[in-house]
């Protein structure tokens, strides 16, 4: 079965009024990293997922999920 990780990063980021570059600076990664995670091209490491969670002030499960949003 093909595994996929869904994320709400784009929605949460825009809700917080952050650009990709702004979030990248908060997390301490490149804009490319945020872009690839948002687009589902790249599955982040646990470390990066936790950093994103901390920067956005949301639990990891709210940002990432195994099922798509309803």
């Amino acid at each position: 079965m093909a595994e996929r990780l869904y994320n709400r990063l784009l929605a949460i980021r825009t809700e917080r009024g952050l650009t990709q570059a702004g979030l990248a600076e908060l997390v301490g990664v490149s804009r490319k990293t945020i872009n690839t995670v948002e687009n589902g091209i790249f599955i982040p490491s646990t470390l990066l997922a936790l950093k994103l969670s901390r920067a956005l002030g949301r639990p990891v499960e709210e940002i990432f999920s195994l099922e798509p949003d309803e």
Partner: protein
Amino acid sequence: MANETDFEIADRISRRRARMLPVLGVYFLAGQAVFFRHVGEPERIASFKISAWLVWAVVLLLALAFAGGQFRGAKIRALVEDEVSRANRARGYAAGFWGGCIAAIALYVLTMFEPVGGREAIHIILTATVASALIRFGMLERRALRDG
């Protein structure tokens, strides 16, 4: 450019690398046509071509392994070499492995019909390995940098 942040500099370096690597890979591959057109050439010209190819291959291998903010300090280097780039590079290396294997198999089949020298065989396998790794890594980086 004077007021660029580390993040902007890293982004610029990543974009430049993503643009350059596939072009270099294709150019390296295409340049091999010249190498094999040396029938009847004086020995010293053939030797020069071989040396030039070897230097080029080593430079490209180093670019594949290390290119990205090498002289810009640890922070920029870390941003350029983030986990996306590391994963893309690993996939590039895998593509290089398969490129080399396919070239080796093709050469093996070719030797059943035509003799191929050891040096030529190494040349073809190394070229296929380096070029496919460079092209794959560069294309993945380009995709990662694409907006939207």
